[in-house]
């Protein structure tokens, strides 16, 4: 028994799970960190309780093994009951302590700070994420997909809703999960303390492609973030008659996808404005490389069976046109 508990403890050391993108006990961000310390605390208590009770049980079993007699005799449990009372007392104290620690943690991370400088609307829909950046001046508002870019050390308020079924927004290393329920707006918030890429994942069963509904959170310095924001506002250059890729895109993809600055305005699929600058494709399933994109366009239903994007059986030339066009939408 004890061997198993040791394995439980060992594996949780930060070293064991550093390369796991979604593990959260090594989180250091303001929310993720607060929960992680609470997590370590409660895990410690749990492991401790298991070891104590395990020892008690093993000792209880082996201490009288030698006695072969199976006779029944009168018993006096006054001492045993006093020990049980003590045990329950200690457990109650530990439970109350844990409860109070929880409530304190909840209080500190429960509500987003009043004046979060940045608000992002994330709308979940069957199996990808629409991300709208809000601003006081409507002209600075824009939409992107499957990717949250946020500045470091800045609390970001996130308003969550869903266009179809219930999804759940979860970036383990940056904070707890919050459900996205249609006709209801839930509010959560994130704050990153380190620049880098984090992975988010839908964590409420939402149908066929729930498993592959992830997104990427890229944390930039404040300066890089502002540069990124202004570039996102630039409309895409070129027109259908001059650019073969855009012309194919207009005919094949414009009914479902939007590229700001071109007549393509479909909202059924993710917004592809500035697609080239994104880190991953297909709801963070594959890195954003031309080969992956071409493979995704050609074999959509084999990669993610059941996803809404149909296989268009396009000609190879069309696929390469569209792929190159999208990739240089930086």
């Amino acid at each position, binding site marked *: 028994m004890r061997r198993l508990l040791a394995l439980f403890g060992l594996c949780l050391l930060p070293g064991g799970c550093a390369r796991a993108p979604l593990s959260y006990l090594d989180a250091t961000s303001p929310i993720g960190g607060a929960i992680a310390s609470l997590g370590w605390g409660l895990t410690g208590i749990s492991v401790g309780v298991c070891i104590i009770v395990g020892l008690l049980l093993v000792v209880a079993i082996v201490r009288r093994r030698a006695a072969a007699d199976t006779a029944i005799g009168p018993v006096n449990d006054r001492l045993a009951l006093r020990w049980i009372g003590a045990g329950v007392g200690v457990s109650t104290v530990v439970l109350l302590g844990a*409860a109070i620690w929880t409530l304190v943690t909840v209080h500190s991370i429960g509500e987003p700070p009043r004046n979060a400088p940045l608000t992002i609307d994330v709308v979940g829909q069957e199996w990808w994420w629409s991300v709208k950046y809000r601003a006081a001046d409507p002209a600075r508002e824009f939409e992107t997909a499957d990717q949250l870019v946020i500045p470091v050390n800045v609390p970001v308020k996130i308003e969550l809703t869903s266009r179809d079924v219930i999804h759940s927004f979860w970036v383990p290393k940056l904070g707890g999960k919050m459900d996205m329920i249609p006709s209801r707006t839930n509010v959560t918030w994130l704050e990153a303390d380190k620049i880098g890429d984090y992975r988010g994942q839908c964590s409420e069963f939402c149908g066929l492609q729930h498993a592959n509904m992830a997104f990427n959170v890229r944390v930039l310095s404040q300066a890089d973030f502002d540069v990124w924001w202004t570039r996102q506002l630039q409309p895409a250059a070129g027109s259908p008659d001059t650019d073969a890729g855009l012309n194919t895109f207009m005919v094949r993809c414009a009914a479902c996808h939007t590229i700001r600055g071109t007549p393509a305005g479909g909202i059924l699929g993710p917004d592809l404005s500035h697609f080239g600058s994104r880190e991953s494709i297909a709801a963070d399933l594959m890195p954003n490389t031309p080969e992956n994109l071409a493979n995704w366009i050609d074999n959509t239903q084999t990669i993610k069976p059941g996803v809404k994007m149909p296989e268009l059986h396009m000609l190879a030339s069309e696929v390469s046109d569209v792929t190159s066009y999208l990739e240089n939408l930086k």
Partner: protein
Amino acid sequence: MTVSQADATVSPEGRKLLGIWETAPGIFGWLATVDHKTIGIRYLCTAFFFLIVGGLEALVMRVQLAQPELKLLSPDAYNQLFSMHGTTMMFLYALPMLSGFSNYLWPLMLGSRDMAFPRLNALSYWTFLAAGIFLYVSFPIGQAPNGGWFAYVPNTSLQYDPGINMDVFALGLVFLGISTVVGSANFIVTLLRCRAPGMSVNRLPIIVWGTFTASCANLLAVPAVSLACAMLWLDRRFGTHFFDVAGGGQPLLWQHLFWIFGHPWVYALVLPAMGIVSDALPVFCRRPLVGYTLVAISTVATMILGFGVWVHHMFATGLPVMSLSFFSAASFVIAIPSAVGVFCWIATIWTGKPQFTTPFLFFAGFVMLFVIGGVSGFMTASVALDWQLTDSYFVVAHLHYVLLGINVFPVVGGIHFWFPKMTGRMMDERLGRWTFWTMFIGFNAAFFPMHVTGLMGMPRRVYTYPAEMGVGGLNLLSTIGAFVFALGVLLFLLNIGRSLRSGPPAGDNPWDAPALEWSTSSPPPVYNFATIPQVASRHPLWEERLGETDRRSILGDRASTGMVLDRGKETIGVTPLDAEPNVVLKMPGDSLLPFLLAAGMTVLFFGLLARSGWAIGAGGLAEIVILFLWLTPRQFAESEEVALHE
């Protein structure tokens, strides 16, 4: 399926009782039996069959998850499998298995000849069987329920799941709810009225306390899920707007209704099993249970608190933090009664003389798994931590530790313990030990790594996961563990098969256990007790050796002065608390009505599924006619009026 009494040594009045109580032979008897022992065994076998079906589904899922991005199952196939795995285990295995135990043991433990409502007992089994088949009716055409056992709306509304998948689920649950509620009512009345004189409430075995509490909880909780499922079905097929957002409905209403049922239900699944351990473990410690009253009170307390914690399943739905904190605190407090139970069992082992029989191993293993499952529950009770833990594989680990640890292990141990009583044959100890260690190691190898994959962020209910998530190795370990556990269950089945054919004869009390059921023969006669016993203590068969009181229970054939009650099928009715006899109960004999009522209900529910007016009309009419027949009181011949014996 009763073992016919070839035994020549039955006493004369026994032969008379035998004539009165024995089930008719042949198909009529098979369909019409109301003997609680037959129904109990049928419950055990059917529930075990569903355990195996659910287990196979789990194995296929584990193969799909053994390594990242495998293509064994399509997403819809995986969704159907994990939904049916959950539904089968939670609804078709867990409670029916415990009902099997309680149905079989209660009359024997309480010193009565049968449950309070024998025909109702048969009805609850037949309805359970029919509902089980109903839930699997769309499986062969590849349209099994695929919205998860929790079936959250709007994913299961018509707009996103237009097939008949979720109609089968919703109607199936309402159908099964009838069986559960009927069974619970029967258990409650049996406890209150059908006991041997002297079996007062402080002498009841803990499994009786467990099942009684579970039954009371079911009466309050099951209607919630039946209502929710009816509303879901109406939303899907008749355009109502209970959960439909466009029409002003609320998706969260489903979650509240479901979990108000959900949490009391999971406690109903474990309390009787904890009762099994509290009754059987002391036998192998050669001493009574430490702190009987503490354990009884903690059983009831757990269930009462169980009604106040359901929102801990919904910590991430954006409800106000203030209310979440209340439910989080309640979820912490509910660990205290469980702690009481654990300390009592350990104290019993500590102060007893443990015998390393197979049941004992299972019960010791149970205590360890109970603690691990309990503390992982304690971790998810913390609302802040639960924002990371919920919907991850950590919760999968927790629920399997709690459900397998607290339900399956005691059940397998309990079967090892009561198999001799039920069949008159002993199970093989060596094979039993092999079964325990295979199951224990397999179980821990399968589900312990899930704590770790959960903490590494692996979400629940995913048909695959990307390689770079780093959880491939642990999932492979889980898959191997699952197959080892399955091997253990196979060994258990072998043991049962072999013991049924050639197990050594068991005798009346092979374990020298104290409870009343061990005072009968193995298997007990169909009328249970030739004369109604009088109970004087909590451990009728250990009274001399324990020396707690000088009064002695009057048992079995030695109770020559006891009540014979052989004018028709009769048993004694007692006052609820102190168990003073105050009435002789006339019990109904074999009857086809329960089977027919269940058949009528099946036609009705298939009519609802297919929305065919004819089937609904036929089913409904059949129900009314059968209920009419069922409820017409039988006139007893004048002579059968019996004066009350002192």
